[in-house]
């Protein structure tokens, strides 16, 4: 026999909780971390990563220096031409940051264009250059595995400690990001109704993350010593 109160449909709508941008930022963080985790980066073109890295740098410098619009047009044709050969999903992953950056630049430059219409042509060139630069960088990032990038940096004589930190950082970002998402989920499940101490919990979440980071780093060091680390880092 089911009691009557169990059959009733409950109407509970949690009160609107304004100003939760801090929590939302942290959640967005979790999304970004997921993006790093899935970053597989199939190697495109079969060019060695060092060459790709140098090519990217050369491309960026050329683009930044170029004032000749024909040259800019040629670079645009080259980049977009390569871009249109990519599968649709990779394409979107490459274009999203580039479009975001270009849009932000457009918003920032609009007042300048309004104040000084004569300079608008140059401003458009800058916007186009921002778009192409970010496209090139994210193209490189999409088509190259991260550990190959760090190996390439090591070959270019970047100090070992820097490359080592770079490699570790990426791994820690994923681990700590997972921790942040977990902490926030736990906090969200426990906080019912209106929460007046959001900002306090932000300090707590990040503080705990930092403590966990130091714990992780100690464990990493112990693991390194156990595996015979000799102060020389050659890349993963």
């Amino acid at each position, binding site marked *: 026999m089911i009691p009557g109160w169990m059959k009733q449909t409950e109407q509970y709508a949690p009160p609107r909780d304004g100003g939760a941008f801090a929590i939302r*930022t942290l959640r967005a*963080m979790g999304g*970004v971390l997921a993006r790093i985790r899935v*970053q597989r980066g199939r190697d495109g073109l079969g060019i060695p990563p060092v060459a790709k890295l140098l090519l*990217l*740098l050369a491309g*960026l*410098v050329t683009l*930044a*220096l*170029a*004032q*000749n619009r*024909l*040259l800019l*047009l040629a670079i645009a*044709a080259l980049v*977009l031409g390569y*871009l*249109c050969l990519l599968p*649709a*999903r990779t394409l979107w992953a490459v274009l999203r940051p580039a479009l975001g*950056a270009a849009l932000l*630049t457009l918003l920032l*430059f609009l007042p*300048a264009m309004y104040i000084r219409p*004569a300079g608008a*042509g*140059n401003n458009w060139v*800058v916007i186009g250059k*921002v778009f192409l630069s970010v496209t090139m*960088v*994210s193209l490189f*990032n999409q088509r190259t595995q991260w550990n190959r990038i760090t190996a390439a940096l090591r070959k270019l004589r970047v100090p070992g*400690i820097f490359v*080592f*930190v*770079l490699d*570790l*950082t*990426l791994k*820690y*970002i994923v681990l*700590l990001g997972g921790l942040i998402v977990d902490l926030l989920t736990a906090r969200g499940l426990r906080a019912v109704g209106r929460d007046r101490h959001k900002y*306090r919990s*932000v300090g*707590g979440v*990040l*503080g705990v*993350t*930092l*403590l966990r*980071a*130091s714990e*992780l*780093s*100690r464990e*990493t*060091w112990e693991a*390194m010593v156990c595996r015979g680390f000799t102060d020389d880092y050659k890349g993963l």
Partner: protein
Amino acid sequence: MHIPENYLSPVSCAVMGAAMIPVWVHAVKKTDRELPKEKLPLLGAGAAFSFLAMMFNVPLVGGTTGHAVGGTLIALLFGPNAACLAVSVALLLQAVIFGDGGVLAFGANCFNMAFVLPYVGYGVYRLLLGKQNGRTSDARPYGASLGTSDARPYEGGTGGIRPYVAAFIGSYVGLNLAALCCAVEFGIQPMLFKDAAGNALYCPYDLGVAIPAMMIPHLAVAGFVEAVFTVAVFALVRKTAPDLSYERMLADAPEAGKKKKYIPVFALIAVLIAACPLGLLATGTAWGEWGADEIAEIVTDGKALGYTPSGLESGWSLDVPMPDYALEGMNETLAYILSAVIGVALLIIIFKLISIPMKGRRNPS
């Protein structure tokens, strides 16, 4: 505060990058000596933490966003040199993986956020704590022996709020000085790099616009975001894990006492270097008063790099109608072909993007 690609001229980027090289070398050497080897992975952890802190975006007035950088915090916990490396790594990852901040502008971004911010923040913190803390830090083994349950193991007899106030002011000043450097870098672009018609080639806002646009939101909001962020995490760490502190690390290091003497000097140098762009500012306006000829000269000098490959005469400008038409006339076919390639590529890209949701409907995987 992340400067994107092409806001700064390549020359400025090169100058800022060159300015960062000695800082990095110094930081790597110093960290190597100072940081106990077992704390090495902590640098990666610090960088990861800094990366996460920088994603903490707060909407500001004027359509911009500010974020805590956490540079001062990391300097307080791991030392300014380690903070410099950690923030640099975080910035590099942001530039390469997320397109947040330019790859060429990496040097400039590092100068502002990985050099000025942590060193100034830490320097101000040390100055505010003064000698008092130096004395208590010598007595650190005693404080440490009290164990982690003690709420403030470092202060000895002094007030507990002082380090937090120092951390608050330090991070506030550090962030604002970094923002000022950033504004100056933006602001000198239109003075130094314009075409013959006087139109800016890179960032179009001069110092009069860039400094208020950067400083007002940072002074009013972002500085406080950074300071509150720093103090909140710093307080939690001091309470729960007092071992995790740069002062503690220095106290454990064999030549700790010797090092402390240099820190105020260091802060002074950092402030002086940060003030350097201000000197440039003064000379910049002086340049402006020289007259049009010299400016034209400087401008053509700056542009010569861009033009030599095309074999055009220097002094030619994009926005002067006549040569522009001439160019169009000369390379009309080439421009036409390139435009066609771009148009076709754009169409393919757009259709591929449109196809994403359609595919998703047909094939739920």
